[in-house]
Each structure stands twice: as C-alpha cells, then as structure tokens.
C-alpha cells in the first residue's frame, strides 16, 4: 500500500456517484474536443495551404475584378515561377444534390501547373484544350453528380443567368489531405466568350502564383502590388493561406464564441466534480479527523482529497479522449469529409487537441478538488471527530 491506495479506494465508496461524475467529465471532454475539432477543421484548409503559393486579388473588394492583361505583368515579376488566374462563378447545382460547391473559370493552360496538388493526367489536359466547354471536376464532386469522363453536365450560377452546359473531360485527384475535392473547373475563355458576361469582358477574378522560394514571399508579394499601385485597380497579394482565411474571416466571431463555449462546458463540469468531492468530504469529515489524530498533517489530508478529485477527472478524461478518437476519427469524421467536403475537407481531431483535453481534465480535477480539500485540511481535529456525518 502507498499514499495513493486510500484515494483510489475511496472512489468505490459511492460507486454510482463516481460513475456519474466520470460520465459527466467524459461528456465534457467529448464536447470540448468536438468544438475544437470544428474550429481546427474550419482553419485546416488555410493552415495547410502551400507555402510557395500566393494569391493576388483586387485591393478593395473580392467582388471586384482585375483586367486580364495584369497576368502578363505578373508573370514578369522576378520571383514568380508560374502564374494562373480564376473567376468566381458562384456555381449552383440545379438538381440540388449538394448545398454548395466551388465553381471556377480558369486558364486551362496554366491552372494545374500552379495548383499542382490537384493531379490530372496529360490526356485530360489535352482533351481540355480540344473542348471549349470542357470541365474538370474533383473526384468527390464527380461521385456526387454521378459523372464520368465524357458525361455532360449542367450547372447554374448566382451571378450569370440561365443554364451552363459542360462536358466532363477530366477528374482531378488530391495530392494533399486538405485539397477541396468538390471544385468545378472550366475554361475561362468559354466564360469570356459567352454573351451573358457582357458586363465583365476581359476581366479576371484573382491570380495565383508559384514563387521561387517561400522565404521571400513577403518581398515578392510587395513587388507585385507595387507594379499595379499606380493603376486604377490596385492589387493586394497575400499568401494562399491568408486568401482562404479571408473567406472564413467573417466567422471569426463565431469561432471565438465557440471557443468560449468549449470553456463553459469545462466550467460546468468543474462545478459538478467540485460538488461530488464536497459531498464525499462532508460524509467523511469524521474519518479525516481520525487521520489527523493519528498524525497525518493537514497537507497530506488535502493531497488525499486532491488525489481523489484528480483520479475521477483523469478517468473521465481518458474515457472521453478514447470516445473522441472512436467517434470522431473513425466514424463522424470520415462521414463529414465525404458528405460536407465543400466545407470540411478534413474533419479529424489532431493529437494536440486530445492532449489539450486531457490536460484540461487534470486541471479541472485540481481546481474542483481545491476548495473541499482546503476546507477539510483546515478543520480542527476535535470538531472533525465530533461530527457524525
């Protein structure tokens, strides 16, 4: 026997209460991890973006376009290895099989040179060159729409009226976990030549460049913006990560609120654990008096109680982490990734979140047990011995 025997055996004294408390901690850990995973997943695409790619957009508004000839100027900037461009199509599925997917009109000659973590075969690229209304889809999107190479597909747009007809000439596969597998790509010149884009001819949405080395990305970005500074349409060049975050940015407050909420659940469960420990301490006051009489110093009594609290918290923490690993990483996550990959390409609880949760559980064990422990250790021995529960 050692000093941990007494606290651990005490957990079995009121088995029901201990089990309920452990379940509460487990629940808190589950919620905490789920919320954190949600936040991580939202930022994941941005976090994992290539370090050697930068995006150049209109300085004032994402809804404003740049003149097409800017791409030629961009390609001359030292440090820019390859550059391409895209227009936002605001694509919608007329059959509503998917709530949201990204549709881009891109330069078919350079897109896959720059966005090299989307993989296509040379045959697909060649077919794209031959087919004016050719489209290349992400593998997940193709599956949702039940399309193969050679199929016809019709989509609509929030910006441009009517139906748009395309022929699938290729399907790209992702080379990285965080690549969006639901993108619909078609030729920019097809968009530009269509009479429906009468108000925005020879204009592009934004440009993406691969730079020679990522260490100098800030300098190269500045150089690019300087080039267009004296024009009417000024640019802003940021890392691809910041560009992606720009879309998510408005959710900053929601994400911050979620962060607060994940802490609230920890607070709630700290109260529950503190209550449980207090109840146990109150029931055993007499016993603590006996221990003090025998010679156990107040600090030791305090440690016994803290130990009990910590054990319950860690038991719940470990159970919670195990449950998270099972539920999120083996069940919920893959389901989210498959069905909601427009928003969550990557729904997975990283190890550091699990570690954070365990540390939080331990911390709440100590905090919850703190007050009852202090109370018990400060009792006068004669008072404690007099109490009969």
């Amino acid at each position: 026997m050692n000093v941990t025997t007494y606290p651990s055996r005490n957990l079995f004294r009121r088995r029901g209460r201990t089990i309920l408390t452990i379940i509460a901690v487990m629940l808190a850990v589950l919620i905490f991890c789920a919320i954190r995973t949600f936040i991580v997943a939202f930022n994941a695409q941005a976090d994992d973006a290539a370090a050697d790619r930068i995006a150049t957009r209109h300085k004032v508004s994402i809804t404003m376009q740049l003149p097409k000839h800017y791409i030629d100027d961009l390609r001359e900037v030292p440090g820019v290895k390859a550059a391409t461009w895209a227009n936002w199509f605001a694509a919608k599925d007329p059959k509503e099989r998917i709530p949201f997917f990204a549709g881009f009109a891109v330069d078919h000659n350079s897109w896959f040179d720059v966005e090299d973590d989307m993989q296509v075969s040379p045959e697909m690229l060649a077919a794209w060159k031959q087919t004016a209304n050719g489209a290349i889809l992400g593998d997940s999107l193709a599956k949702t729409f039940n399309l193969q190479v050679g199929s016809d597909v019709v989509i609509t747009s929030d910006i441009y009226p009517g139906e748009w007809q395309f022929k699938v000439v290729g399907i790209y596969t992702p080379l990285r976990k965080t690549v969006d597998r639901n993108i619909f790509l078609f030729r920019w010149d097809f968009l530009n030549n269509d009479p429906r884009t009468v108000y925005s001819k020879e204009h592009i949405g934004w440009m993406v460049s691969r730079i020679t080395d990522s260490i100098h990305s800030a300098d190269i970005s500045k150089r690019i913006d300087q080039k267009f500074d004296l024009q009417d349409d000024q640019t802003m060049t940021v890392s691809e990560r910041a560009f992606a975050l720009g879309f998510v940015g408005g959710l900053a407050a929601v994400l911050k609120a979620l962060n607060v909420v994940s802490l609230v659940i920890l607070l709630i469960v700290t109260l529950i654990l503190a209550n449980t420990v207090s109840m146990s301490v109150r029931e055993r006051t007499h016993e603590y008096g006996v221990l003090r009489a025998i010679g156990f110093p107040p600090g030791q009594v305090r440690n016994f109680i803290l130990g009990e609290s910590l054990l319950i918290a860690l038991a719940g923490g470990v159970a919670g982490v195990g449950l998270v690993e099972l539920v999120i990483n083996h069940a919920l996550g893959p389901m989210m990734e498959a069905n909601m990959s427009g928003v969550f390409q990557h729904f997975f609880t990283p190890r550091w979140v699990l570690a954070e949760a365990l540390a939080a559980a331990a911390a709440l064990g100590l905090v919850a047990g703190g007050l009852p422990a202090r109370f018990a250790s400060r009792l006068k021995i004669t008072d404690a011995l007099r109490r009969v529960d």
Partner: protein
Amino acid sequence: MTLLIVVLIVLLLPFVLLVLMKAVPFEYNARSLVVRKVTTLATALGIALVVFVFAGALMLGDISRVLAAAGRDDTVIIMRKGSDSELTGAIANEHLGLFRGPAQVSQAGGVIGEIVVVVIADHADGSGSSNVLVRGTPPEGIAFRPEIKIISGRAPRPGTNEAIVGTAIAGRFKGLSAGQSLDLRRNRPLIVVGEFSAGGASYESEVWGDLDYIRNALGRQAIVSSARVRLNHPEDFDAYRQAIETDKRYSMKVMRESDYFEKQSAQTATFLKVMGLIIAVLFSLAAMIGAAITMNGAVAHRSREIGTLRALGFSRLAILTSFLAEAIVLAVIGGVIGSALVLVLSVFVSFPIINFQTFSEIVFRFHATPAVFAKALVFSGGMGLIGGLVPAIRASRVSPIEAMRG
C-alpha cells in the same frame, strides 16, 4: 409553442399533486435545499450556465426573425432571376422605368434602384479585416425608408462622395467614423459625414453613399444590383409579382422585402441555431447528471428521515412527488440565475456574424424576449425533472425500517 405548454404542465404536476394529496409539506424539501447551501448553489450554477447557453442559442436562431422584422409588407425587392442576393444581381438601368408601370405601384413611394458591393475594411482594433456592405442609393433612397434616422452628423449630399455609416458598424472599422474615409478604388474615397440607425435592421451594418458616384467608381454605370418598389397595399403583392415576372422584356424575380431579409439570413440562422441547439442539448446532459448526483446524495443523506416519514404514514407517491418537486425547484433556481446572466448578455454584448450569402458582416444584438425567458425556465425545470426522476424513485423505495437505523 404547444411543446412549451405540455412540458410546463408536466412540470407543474408534482406541485399540484403535492397540494391535492396534502402530502409531505414542501417546507421540508425547501429547508433541505437551504441547509445544504453549497451543494444547492453548485448544482444551480451548473444549470444556470446551461440555461445561459440554451437561451443564447435560441436568440441566435432568432436572427432571421429580427432581420425580417425590418422588411415592410408593402415593399417589394426586385432582383435578376437566378440571383440569390442583391450582391450578385445586375439589372439594366432602363428597366427601372418599366417597374414603375403597373397599377399597384404607389405613386408616392415609387421605385428606387441601388447598387450593392462588399468592400474589405480593416478592423479598428487591428484584429484583421472583414467585408463591409456598401450601398449606393439614389437621392430619394433615405426617405424611402422612414425608419432611417440620422443619429449623428448629417445626411450625405446627393451626387457627392459623402456617405453615412450604420450604427452597428460605426467605429468598428478603420475609416468608418465621422470625418474618416473608405477607399472604393484608387482616388475614389467615400467620406463619412454621419451615422444612421434603422430600427435594428441589417441596414445598420452597411455604409450608404451616392448611387452614381459609387457606380462610376466601380465602372458599373449602366446597372443597379436591385430595385425596391413601394406598393399601394400589401395585398397588391401577388398581382404586381405576376406583372413583373411574366414580362418578356426581362427576367426578374420579385420578393417581399421581409421575405428577402429572412431568406438572406436563413442559411446563417439555421447554421447558428442548429449548432447552438446541439451544444445546448449536450450541455443539458451534463447538467442533468449534476442534478442526479445532487439529488442522489440528498436521498442517501436523508434516508433516515425518509424512513421516518414513511413510518409516519406518508405514501410512496408522496415521497416521490416531493423529491421530484425539490429537484425541479433546484433546477429552476438555476434557470433564474441563468436568465439573469442572459439579461446581462443581451444588454452588453453585440455579436458580429457573417452573412453567408454576401460574405459581409452583420452585427447582431441579442434580443431577450419574454418568450426566451419562458422557454429557458421551462427548459431548466425539464432538466430538473429528468435528472431528479431516478433519485426521487429511489427515495420512494426507502423502507420505514430505515427510521430505526442507529
């Protein structure tokens, strides 16, 4: 609503039974709550926090209702068919005159066309940047909405680069305070000359300037994003819609303004509401466990008293009901504390969220209505009922022999 009433009835049942059966005097249970102050407080606080989150979720879900309230029944918004929001719409200027044609249009109110665009603005506190909605409105645009009030500074002069900023975003972004300016394009600034309020409508998260100045700055002289039309009577809507949507000269979509606002925020609202409710439900599980632990402890602690009561002749049902009532009261105390916290939230906190359709920021204030409080209290009572059920059953199973235990 009916769910609320049903749950309320279920919650009141134990108390009614207690009175009818002349059962265990409730003072007995009430005293117990007071004597074990620490436990009662800790449990009530836990429930209070859950109620707080629940009410917050309810209020967030209300956002579309709040925004919809800003729209008028007799005002109609016209957008290009296929557009889901003003931002992506484009209507040729010459069509505006045609919209004025049908008989349902109020001659006093009339038709206005506006351009809408989002602009990146830096947060005043340096915490990054967000999109802000800029609206170019014709000279009669402000008067078109009687609820608009200039609360500081003055209205912009038509045809100039002056602008007013909505009260929800005033001062939150660099350039959006009186005297400052926001660039639309190089050498095309909007100078802020005043601040306006709009009765809580989403307009309060917008910047308003002159239609022509903004159109020219953006190179979109010939178009507007949307048109708004005031009808003679709200009932004229169907006739007017028929007239416009079947006209072969253009392809438009007509909606009531209130419906438009509601749809605009629908995606955001649903997202927030679903997320909020899922969180609240999971939290409530924790709170119910907390209530169960507390009540179980109370039953164990008082088993001798319960045995005595049973020996004195109180029935099982009486004991069950009294402990159930105690659990509900405990939970409702938490509900009251949580509601107080919610009140603080609604007064002091405003919440910026993103409108998924326009990617622009809407600033939302929590709106605590009596309905929210009612639902919160009933929710707390419900948690007490469920959490306290098993302990109450256990209490009723205590045998009179327990009274003899030394």
